[in-house]
């Protein structure tokens, strides 16, 4: 268990507050940090009329920043993701550390080119002449009746792209530490916030701190099977593990945290102990993070595996609106438990 990846202290704040606190502290520490996006503050251009933070971010993760840092460093944008995300990349390659927010990952298709052809490749194409310390914050996650265009979790697409890094924090503590790491990192990082985590509180140190990019953590030790969770799914896996413990099955639960690079050493070590692997991934299955992890583990610790590396993911369908179907779409404890039982031969 990587203890440094666990919070110390007793102050509890929400995931959303942890993000907000991190942004505030990073902007205090480094005047090169700026942030831009739609409704980052809200009521743009009406500050004179006493309008401030009309939204403070659609999920209030950026509230208060404009009061403290002013509209030169906290920039509300028009609905122009390609331009402002591209501009953030350009700014990051010329001396700033720009953070840009894409309201939901579902909209990536309007600005993807700037990510894949500029942010990801500039350093390489330029032969190392440039650093692009750019962070894109965005939101993922289904389960809210928001239907097919507001519920995606496309992190696998970004992990596929060489030149990008990606993180999926799972709680307030990792949100603050990994966001700080993302902003301070000299490479482009995509920071994926799960909508279902915003309201959840947990212990978070008040002072700024950084958690390492590229490291997973074990959130529950166990000996029988390794469950790898991504983002909110870590806790779905955890809950399933607690349930299974009652039946005498001892699951180890790994919180992936970083989707590029992926901490294979951590996962492999666990599987070498438990001999079984299930990846729990809210995204659809084909060419997914789940397939990536299962395939690497199968390749790298093949001889240790006592059962097929398996996955519990969403099906290969868009996200349906009606809860009647969406509940079935989401990976849940029942499916995890059934899969564990199958792999355990019960």
């Amino acid at each position, binding site marked *: 268990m990587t203890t440094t990846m666990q919070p110390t202290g007793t102050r509890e704040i929400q995931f959303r507050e942890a993000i907000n606190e991190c942004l505030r502290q990073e902007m205090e520490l480094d005047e090169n940090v700026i942030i831009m996006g*739609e*409704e980052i503050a*809200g*009521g*743009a*251009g*009406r500050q004179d*009329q006493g*309008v401030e933070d*009309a*939204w403070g971010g*659609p999920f209030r993760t950026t509230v208060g920043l404009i009061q403290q840092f002013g509209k030169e460093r906290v920039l*509300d*944008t*028009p*609905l*122009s993701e*390609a*331009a402002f995300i591209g501009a953030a990349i350009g700014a990051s390659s010329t001396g700033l550390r720009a953070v840009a927010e894409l309201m939901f990952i*579902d*909209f990536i*298709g*309007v600005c993807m080119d700037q990510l894949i052809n500029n942010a990801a490749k500039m350093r390489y194409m330029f032969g190392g002449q440039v650093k692009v310390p750019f962070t894109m914050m965005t939101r993922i996650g289904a389960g*809210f*009746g*928001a*239907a*097919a*265009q*507001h519920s995606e979790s496309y992190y696998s697409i970004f992990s596929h792209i060489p030149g990008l890094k990606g993180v999926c924090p799972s709680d307030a503590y990792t949100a603050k530490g990994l966001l700080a790491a993302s902003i301070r990192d000299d490479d482009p990082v995509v920071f994926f916030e799960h909508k279902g985590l915003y309201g959840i509180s947990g212990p978070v140190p008040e002072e700024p701190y950084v958690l390492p990019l590229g490291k997973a953590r074990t959130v529950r030790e166990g000996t029988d099977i390794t469950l790898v969770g991504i983002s909110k799914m870590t806790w779905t896996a955890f809950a399933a593990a607690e349930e299974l413990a009652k039946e005498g099955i001892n699951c180890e639960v790994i919180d992936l945290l970083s989707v590029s690079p992926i901490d294979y050493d951590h996962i492999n070590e666990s599987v070498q102990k438990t001999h079984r692997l299930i990846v729990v991934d809210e995204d659809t*299955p084909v060419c997914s993070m*789940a397939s990536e992890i299962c395939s690497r583990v199968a390749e790298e610790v093949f001889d240790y595996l006592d059962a097929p590396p*398996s*996955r*519990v*993911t*969403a*099906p*290969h*369908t*868009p996200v*349906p*609106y*009606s*809860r*009647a*179907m969406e*509940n*079935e*779409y989401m990976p849940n404890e*029942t*499916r995890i438990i*059934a*899969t564990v039982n*199958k792999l355990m031969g019960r």
Partner: protein
Amino acid sequence: MDLDREALLKLYNTMTVIRHFEERGIPETGQRGMSASVHSSAGQEAVPVGVCANLSDEDYIGSTHRGHGHCIAKGVDVKQMMAELFGRATGPNKGKGGSMHISDMSKGMLGTNGVVGASIPLALGAALTSKVKGLNRVAVAFFGDGASSQGVLHESMNLASIWKLPVIFLCENNGYAMSTPSEYGVSTTHISDRAQGYDMPGVLVDGMDVFAVYDAAAQAVARARSGEGPTLVECQTYRYYGHTVFDNPLTYRSKEEEDHWRARDPLNHFRTVVIPQGEITAAELDQLDADAEALMEEAVKFADESPLPKPEELYDDVYVDYPKDMMKRGVNMSI
């Protein structure tokens, strides 16, 4: 304006149905826990109604996240719409789409759309179909002031212009994209002025006046049908409520501003214009309001009594033809 009594009544009726749908349907949806992405168009009724009065079921519209009004004006069944919002199997989308994806291909309604600007090229494509097949249909692409900053609009206006497609770019400028005022987000005083850069007419219209909208749309539709190409129409309008139910608009706009626009309410405006003409009485319009209210009662009841989709319908309608086992294979689904 060439509207007879019946047509006038229809205009009002459609507006009041939209108003009642928004004011009843949205809170009812919220009470059923499905309000995540529902946007009210109350206040903006004159725009879709004025525009769609020029269209037939054969014509097409592309719509937005704020699309209930577009749907109703284009003839989508209100009870089915309510069922869709409630996530029921009897919705036009069988509960798969919800508020942001309501569509009815039989009415030429190409879907409300959750990605700002994304439906614009769909309307372009429908216009292309009409042109290639010689169907003499037109397509209207509705979009907001916020959407005017999306690149795809620029590309689409250019493409429609060079191909002389029978399409109308219909901007509903309600002054805000979420809380961002258009005077901040849009670098031109009037979005309609951008039409010049694409060699098409740009028309600025009072979007609270259904007759003004009707006339402007009539001209644009005539131009499109005669093969002369696209028009950009900007309708100045206002949404009475927040961006979604989670938004309190008074955090970014004033009560005075709201009052100013509410004083120009499109239903009221209709009354002040039409009743004095003497052909239509206030009582008749009151009756239409009452009918709309009753219709919503019915719609809510219909929706509530409708079955939910079965969980296994999750796998239907992804493709016309794809091995269903491939959709669930190896991911340990429970059904």
